[in-house]
Every structure is written in structure tokens, then in C-alpha cells.
């Protein structure tokens, strides 16, 4: 079910602005890859190119190649909507649909893609909420509004919503930055479980989080404000955090800059 991502020589632009330069990396199936680096270095931008979400911003475009198990995501005739069905995303701030109940939020992805069968929807909602470790907290109030939950619960609801459509890859853009430490821990445990089924890519500003949850860490940096962000180093998390090849990586991780 999980898929492998190959990024080759990717350059990302917002209109005339060169945001990310020359990134190549491979993400193996059923692993967690963390993107770390200072603000503005293009981690989120790169993450959003993995499911063509950056195209939502007018003027954004990509050069290079992103492949999902060998299928070129930026090839001719590829529908970004179809890509996003396979590569799901969880955002920085919890964003459940305010007009929908907890049940409807989780079922939204399936329903809006044409699934009407009540049984399938019920099963998907229960399974997704269980995987997101939220089922026991909400099973008695599935009809209540999703925005009535606490921040941490809302974020787990958003994760349940993302995995209800059974994506192959799950992208997470700083999923814990708006949450308290206990909710963060819950999400981190969840990422560990999700890894068994999905390929996970997570952007984080929290070094300890990257060290705790990821198998592979990629460090991004930019030469100066207004210059494109670059991939400085990518490797097994243990190596990046104990014995990185680049001086910049070590400086960033030990807190000497950034």
C-alpha cells in the first residue's frame, strides 16, 4: 500500500522567485522522513510539491521530476486531483470542516469522491478514528461538530480524515506546532503506528520530534534571505543527529545557529 517517492533535481518557483533549488532524495515506503531547517528554507514548499498542493498558489511551478513508485507526478496528462487522492496531507493548524460533524468530517473525503454506501462509510469512519486514536473519545458524539473538540483532538480528527481515503503517502506540515505537549505526544505515537501502513513525510521545527519519530532526516538551509533553499544533507536520523557530514547540519542541530 505504501509507496516510494523519488525526487530528482527539483526546482520550485513562486512566479519569478526561486524558492527551492536542486533537491534530490528518495523516501522509502513505510518509513518516516523528517524535514528540518530554519524558517523560509523551503521545507513546506517541497512537501507541498509532493502532492501538487503548491499549485493552489497562483504562479507556483516546478522543474525536475517527482516520482511515486516510478510514476511521474508532473508528467503530461496527470491530474493533480488524482495525485492528492494518493498522497494525503495534514496541515499545521487543525482545520476540520466547520459545517460538518465529526462523522461527516472523517467521511468527507470518501463522500465527496462519490461513495454513498452507508456501510462502507461507517466502517471507514470507525477504522480511521481508531487508527487516529480518537475513536474512544468521540464514539458517543459522532454527530456533534468537529470544531467543538480540543486542539489536539481536532488534529487527530484531521489525521483520521486524511487516512480515511486510504492514501499511500501521508504528508504532515508541522502537525504539532499548534498543540500542547500531551497532544503532541499522542500525535507522535500515532505517527509511529501510521508508519506500519503509510509512507510518512513530516516537516517539523522540533528537533527532538524529528529524532523521536523519523527514520530519515533531511536538513534544509538557505544561503541568505531571498536566496533559494537547498537540501544540505539527508541521511538516517541517528547519523544526522550524532555524526552529520556537514558542519551546517551540526551547527543547526546543536543550536549554534538558526
Amino acid at each position: 500500500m505504501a509507496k516510494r517517492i523519488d525526487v530528482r533535481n527539483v526546482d520550485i518557483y513562486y512566479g519569478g522567485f526561486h524558492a527551492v533549488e536542486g533537491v534530490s532524495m528518495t523516501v522509502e515506503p513505510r518509513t518516516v522522513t523528517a524535514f528540518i531547517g530554519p524558517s523560509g528554507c523551503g521545507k513546506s514548499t517541497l512537501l507541498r510539491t509532493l502532492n501538487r498542493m503548491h499549485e493552489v498558489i497562483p504562479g507556483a511551478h516546478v522543474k525536475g521530476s517527482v516520482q511515486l513508485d516510478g510514476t511521474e507526478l508532473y508528467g503530461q496528462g496527470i491530474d493533480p486531483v488524482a495525485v492528492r487522492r494518493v498522497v494525503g496531507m495534514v496541515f499545521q493548524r487543525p482545520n476540520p470542516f466547520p459545517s460538518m460533524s465529526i462523522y461527516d468530517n472523517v467521511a468527507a473525503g470518501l463522500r465527496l469522491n462519490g461513495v454513498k454506501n452507508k456501510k462502507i462509510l461507517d466502517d471507514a469512519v470507525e477504522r480511521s478514528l481508531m487508527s487516529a486514536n480518537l475513536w474512544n473519545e468521540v464514539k458517543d458524539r459522532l454527530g456533534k461538530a468537529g470544531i467543538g473538540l480540543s486542539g489536539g483532538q481536532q488534529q487527530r480528527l484531521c489525521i483520521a480524515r486524511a487516512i480515511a481515503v486510504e492514501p499511500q503517502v501521508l504528508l504532515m506540515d508541522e502537525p504539532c506546532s499548534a498543540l500542547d505537549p500531551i497532544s503532541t505526544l499522542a500525535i507522535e505515537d500515532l505517527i509511529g503506528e501510521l508508519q506500519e501502513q503509510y509512507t510518512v513525510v513530516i516537516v517539523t521545527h522540533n528537533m527532538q520530534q524529528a529524532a523521536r519519530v523519523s527514520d530519515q532526516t533531511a536538513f534544509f538551509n538557505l544561503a541568505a534571505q531571498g536566496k533559494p533553499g537547498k537540501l544540505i544533507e539527508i541521511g538516517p536520523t541517528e547519523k544526522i543527529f550524532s555524526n552529520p557530514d556537514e558542519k551546517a547540519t551540526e551547527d543547526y542541530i546543536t543550536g549554534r545557529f538558526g
Partner: protein
Amino acid sequence: MSAATTTDAQVSFRRPSGVRTTKNAIATVYVFLATALAVIPLAWVLYTVISKGIRLVLTQEWWLQSQRGITPRREGGGAYHAIVGTVEMALICAAIAVPIGILGAIFLIEYAKGTKVARAVSFTVDILSGIPSIVAALFIYALFITIFGLGRSAVAVSLALVLLMLPVVLRSTEEMLKLVPNELREASYALGVPKWKTILRVVIPTAFAGIMTGIMLGLARVMGETAPLLILVSYAVGINFSPTSDTMGALPTMINSGRDQAPQLPGYERVWAAALTLILISMLLNLLARFIARASKLKEK
């Protein structure tokens, strides 16, 4: 550290000086007076209309009978013919203006945001929302009656009202769509939902209560308009359901037709009762909008 301690020692918990207390009192009085000045005329108008019109409005005939065969010197009859006309013309207007307004706003916010076209259309709509009703009426008169050679009719009135209602609906819908956070659209896209379905199933439901309020405000404005009625349809005292006939009763024209009655005549009271009826219908629409908005909202806990 010692500098900080001395500053701390100087922190005072005494009341502000007399000058400041006085300034505060004066400002408080001003604010209160301004509020009172704004509310007094409103309350006065409401009191006058209710006190002079309530007797007739509470009778059954008022809601069930027309003014056919009733002269200003005679008691009796009702406003049914005018209510029918007002509601019918407002509904035809809404049936045209609401879809165009909402779809236009969706285009401007969801598809053409930030483009020259969007700015040009928004600017035009702003100008349109400033045109007096009589200009809208004369435009429809010129187009509908002079150029197309069609007769005066309730439909012509509705078309003039569309020109007045459209900007209200379009602008308010635009504002409501702007308030929907982009994160919700992105969340929907990330589920592999196409853009049109995102708009239909996520954006519109989120903005629904606000859009509804805009529609009701537009309707309330349009129902009180008098100029298009005077120019595009004659007042009729009898009941008429046909929107294409050239005469139809309406509450504003009912008020207008009786406005020069002497205060001791029964016709005088009917003018006030018609005014009260118009206010009541507007209020009813407003309550209905709130009810729909509330019913569409989910319980949080």
C-alpha cells in the same frame, strides 16, 4: 537588578487624577448620548407606526381581503392584494438575483481572485449598488417598454428590483466567501476533492449563514422600494396573481395611494396599517433567515 527594584517601588495603585476622571465622565456621556440619538428616531417611528396601525393589522379582514370597492370614506377591506403583490414581485426578483449574485460572487472570489476582470466587476457592482431605485426603474422602462415594446407589468418591476438586489447579494456573498479560511479549501483539495466540489460542499456550507443574511437584507430592501412600482406597474385595489398583467397592488403603492387622506377618514388608518404590515413582513424574513442560519449550524458539544 537594583534599577528594576526602584522602578517597582514607584508603581502606583492610586486613582487617576481629577482631570482624567472628568474626561472619562464626559466621554461616557457623549457615547451614551450618541447611542440615544441614534435609537430615539427609530423607536419613535416604530411607536408611531405601531400605535396607528396595530388596530387594523390585528383584524382578520386585513390579511384576507382586498380594497376592491372600498373608498377612503368607508371602513373595511384589507391589504391582501398588496401583500400578494409585494411578496410575488420580491420572490420573482429573488429567483433571478440570488443565483446570479451567488454564482457571480463564486466566480469573483474562487476563480478570478486578484485578476483585472475581478477588480473591474467588483468596481462595477459597487457603482450599481449606489444607483437610486428610480434610475433602475427608468432603465427597465426604457429597455422593456420603449425598446422591446412590452407593456408595464409586475415582471418589469421585478427586473428593476433585480438591479437593486443583485449588488447586495453579490457583495455580501463575496465578503462571506472571503471569510472562509483558505486552510479549509486546502484540506479539501488534499483529500483529492475537485475544486468545484470543494466550493459546493465545503466553502458554501461554511459561509451559508452569512449568505442567507445577505439575501434577506437584499429582499427587505427591495420590498420597500416605491419608485419602480410607480413607474412600471399601476396600483390595483383588487387581488391579482398574474405577474404579466399591467396592474398589481403592493404595500408601498398602497401607502402612496392613501397618503393624502384626511386624518379623520378610515383610509388614513389603512395607510399606517400598510406601513406596519411592510415592517412586519421584513421582520418575518429576518427572523426566518436567522432561524435557517441557526438550524444549519451544528451543535458543538
